[in-house]
C-alpha cells in the first residue's frame, strides 16, 4: 500500500509541473526548455529557507514561489521578445545556468552534494489539493479572456496584436504564472523526496513536460493531466525498465503528432457540459 502511495505522490507532483508547462507551452506556445531551472529554484529556496534560516514550512514555500516569480520576470524581460526557437534555446541556457550556479555556490547549496535531510512535510492530500487548486485556476483562465488571448497568440501573434492584445505583456503574465507554478512544484518536491541536488531536473525532463502536454492535446487541460498521470505512474510501476518508458513515450508522441495532431484528447475538456449531455446549458 505504501508503494502505491509513493507512486501517486510522485505522479501527482509531476502533474503540477506539467500543468505549469501546459499553461506556458500548450496554451500559449512558449517553448521553454528551462523549466528545470525553476524547479530547482523552488526546491532550493524552500529547502535553504527552512533548514538554514528556520523559516516555517508554509513561509518557505511562499518564498519559493515568490523567488520563482521574480526570476521568471527577470528572465522574461529579454527573452519574451525573441523568436520562438531562440526563446527555446535561451531558456535552455537559463536552465543550465541555474545548474551551474547551484554547483558553484557550494557554501549555500552544498554544491554537487546537494542538500540532504529535508524532512517530509508534503503528503498526498496536500498535493491533491494543490493540483485541484491549480487546475481550477488554469481552467478559469482558459475559458475566459486570458485563455482566448493565449490561444490567439499561439496561433497568430500578428493578428493577435491587431485585435488589441498586448502580446509582450500577456506573454509575461503567462511566463510568470507558469514559473510560479513550476517553482511551487519544485518546493513541494524538495519536501517530498527529502534530497535535492543540482541535476534534479535537467533539460530532458523539461522537454518531457512539453512532450506530455502535446500528447494530451494542447487544447485540453484534462488531456495534459491524464497523459501526465499515465506517464509518471507507468514509470514508477516499471522502475526497472525506466529508460524504456521514455522510448515508449517518444514513440507515442510521434504516433500522436503524425496521426492525431490535436493530441489524444484534442479539444475535449472535462466540464459539466461534456459529462451531462442531456442538461444542455449554454456554453
Amino acid at each position, binding site marked *: 500500500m505504501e508503494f502505491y502511495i509513493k507512486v501517486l505522490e510522485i505522479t501527482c507532483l509531476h502533474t503540477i509541473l506539467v500543468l505549469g508547462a501546459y499553461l506556458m507551452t500548450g496554451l500559449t506556445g512558449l517553448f521553454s526548455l528551462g523549466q528545470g531551472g525553476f524547479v530547482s529554484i523552488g526546491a532550493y529556496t524552500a529547502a535553504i529557507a527552512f533548514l538554514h534560516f528556520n523559516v516555517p514550512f508554509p513561509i518557505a514555500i511562499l518564498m519559493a514561489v515568490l523567488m520563482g516569480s521574480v526570476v521568471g520576470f527577470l528572465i522574461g524581460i529579454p527573452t519574451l521578445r525573441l523568436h520562438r526557437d531562440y526563446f527555446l534555446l535561451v531558456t535552455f541556457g537559463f536552465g543550465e545556468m541555474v545548474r551551474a550556479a547551484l554547483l558553484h555556490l557550494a557554501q549555500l547549496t552544498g554544491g554537487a552534494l546537494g542538500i540532504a535531510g529535508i524532512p517530509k512535510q508534503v503528503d498526498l492530500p496536500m498535493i491533491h489539493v494543490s493540483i485541484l487548486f491549480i487546475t481550477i485556476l488554469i481552467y*478559469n483562465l482558459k475559458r475566459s479572456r486570458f485563455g482566448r488571448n493565449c490561444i490567439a497568440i499561439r496561433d497568430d501573434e*500578428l493578428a493577435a496584436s491587431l485585435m488589441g492584445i498586448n502580446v509582450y505583456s500577456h506573454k509575461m503574465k503567462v511566463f510568470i504564472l507558469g514559473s510560479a507554478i513550476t517553482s511551487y512544484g519544485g518546493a513541494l518536491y524538495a519536501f517530498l523526496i527529502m534530497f535535492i541536488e543540482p541535476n534534479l531536473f535537467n533539460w530532458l525532463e523539461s522537454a518531457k513536460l512539453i512532450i506530455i502536454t502535446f500528447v494530451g492535446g494542447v487544447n485540453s487541460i484534462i488531456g495534459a493531466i491524464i497523459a501526465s498521470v499515465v506517464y509518471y505512474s507507468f514509470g514508477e510501476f516499471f522502475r526497472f525498465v525506466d529508460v524504456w518508458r521514455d522510448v515508449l513515450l517518444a514513440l507515442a508522441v510521434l504516433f500522436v503528432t503524425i496521426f492525431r495532431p490535436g493530441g489524444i484528447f484534442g479539444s475535449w475538456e472535462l466540464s459539466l457540459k461534456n459529462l451531462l449531455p442531456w442538461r444542455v446549458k449554454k*456554453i
Partner: protein
Amino acid sequence: MEVLKAITISKNFGGVSAVDQFAMVQQENEITGIIGPNGAGKTTVFNLITGVYPVDTGEIWFCGKNITRLSSHRITDLGITRTFQNIRLFRNLNVLDNLRVAYGIKTHYTMWEEMVRGSRAKREEQETEELARSYLAYFGLDQYVDTFPYNLPYGLQRRLELARALMASPKLLLLDEPAAGLNPKEIHQLIKTLLKIKEEKNLSIIIVEHHMELVMNICQTLHVLNFGKKIAEGEPKDIQQNKAVLQAYLGDEG
C-alpha cells in the same frame, strides 16, 4: 471631422521603396478605396497605419492623435481595426471565440478576477458573449457557433473576419481585398453589408481592392498607387478616365 491623416509616409525595404511619400486624408463616415496594380504597396500602407511596420518618414494621425510610433495593439484600442488579404482567423478558436477575442480590449476585469470568477469578470464575459452572438446573428453565422473557422466555406470565413473587425466598435475599418475569392452574388451581398454597417455603426472605411465593381460602386474617393507612389486621387468616375491610371494598369498602350 478628420478621422485619419497620413502625412507623406514612406517605407523602404532593403533598398526597395514600397511606399513613397504617400499622403491621404479620410473623413468620418466616408468610404475610400486604395487601388493599384499588384505590388503597388497598398497592403504596406495598411501595415504602416496599423503599426505592423514602423514608417521610415512621415506621420500618421488618427482623430487628432499622433499614432505614428504606437504599437499595433494600442492603435486597435484607439479604434482602428482591419481584415487581411490572406484570412487570418485563429484556427484553434471556434467561431464564437474568434469574435470574443476581439472584444477583449473593451473589458476591464483583471487576471485575478478571472482566476476566481469574480462578479465583474462574469458580467463582462456575459457582455462579450452576448455581443459576439449578436454579430453572429447579424452575419448569418449563428449555426456555426461551435465550428472552427477553417472548416467554414470561404465566403463565410470572410464574413467572420469582418464581424471580428467590428467587435471592438472601431471608428475606422481597414479592409484588405475583402472581395478576393468571392463569387458575384457574394460580392453584391458584401456591397450591401458594407453600406449598411457604415450607416448603422457610423464607420469610416478604407478598402484596398482589385475588384473594380466593388470600389466603383461604394467608394466616394479613390487613391491610386503605383510602385509605392500615389499617381491619382479623386472620384471613381474621374479615376476611370485618368490617363496615368490606365497606363499603370494596362502598360504603355500609346
